[in-house]
């Protein structure tokens, strides 16, 4: 026994309701005439609900992507720019690119040239 054959008492109730509704159904011709008049005034290109929702989602995602790009790209670019600038300055003058400690001067002791040069006979030390 399939679904259609079961529950004859419920089926009889629904059948009574079906006949009742059918007797009160509006005229198809009138309804179709009104529908055709409405369809003529409705733009044919108007998208249906599903298409509209898809477009809304796509638009939202695109906007989110643009915002994320605007936030992320300047940060990346600023890091790259600083690096490129350091490379350029090093290429033009290695001394500018070399790192120097602010305490390098403390290592310069009085007379340290005597330690770093080899004395020669017959000349006075400078």
């Amino acid at each position, binding site marked *: 026994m*399939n*679904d*259609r054959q079961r*529950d004859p008492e*419920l*089926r009889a*109730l*629904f*059948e*009574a*309701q*079906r006949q*009742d*509704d*059918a007797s*009160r*159904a*509006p005229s*198809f011709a009138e*309804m*179709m005439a*009104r*529908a*055709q008049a*409405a*369809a003529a005034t*409705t733009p*044919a290109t*108007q*998208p*249906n*609900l599903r298409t509209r929702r898809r477009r809304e989602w796509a638009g939202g995602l695109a906007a989110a992507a643009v915002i994320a790009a605007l936030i992320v790209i300047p940060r990346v670019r600023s890091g790259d720019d600083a690096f490129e600038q350091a490379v350029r300055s090093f290429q033009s003058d290695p001394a500018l690119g070399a790192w120097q400690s602010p305490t390098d001067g403390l290592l310069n002791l009085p007379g340290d040239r005597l330690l770093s040069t080899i004395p020669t006979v017959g000349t006075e030390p400078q």
Partner: protein
Amino acid sequence: MTSRELEAWLERLHEESFGWALSCCSGDRPRAEDVLQSAYVRVIAGRAVYGGRSTFRTWLFGVIRRVAWEHHRRGRSERQRTLRLEHPDVRVVADHRAAPDAVDSSRALGASLARLPERQREVLHLVFYQDMSIAEAAEVMEISVGSARTHYERGKARLRALLAETHERPSTGS
């Protein structure tokens, strides 16, 4: 499918479609007529296109159901806005129908169906009124067959209980 064939199909299914629209609108006849007309507009204007993946009737019922849902949603938001404008403190409560007060079987069935959850009401209508299989009903309702069967069994049990309650309760006039 040509427009003439389309109209022929719509005419052939008109009474069934109206019955389905009535069910989707909880028996509200003027709203069901609006819904059915909007569905026809959508079909003949090409905004709902039959792809041939199911039977024409199943597809058309799906369109009617979607249009009814949109009307319901739009109508509900408008009603809530009106209520708030008229009575700022009013709370919007669910629209429960009155208990059936007539022994007339068709009215008792309508009143009992109105007290069922939407999905149960839909699947019972499609199977018993429209003579669809549960698989076809599931397709119209855009749910799985298993889910439709669950709604069907629960709905049947609940409907029987409500009908029995209606018959046991003495008529309260009107």
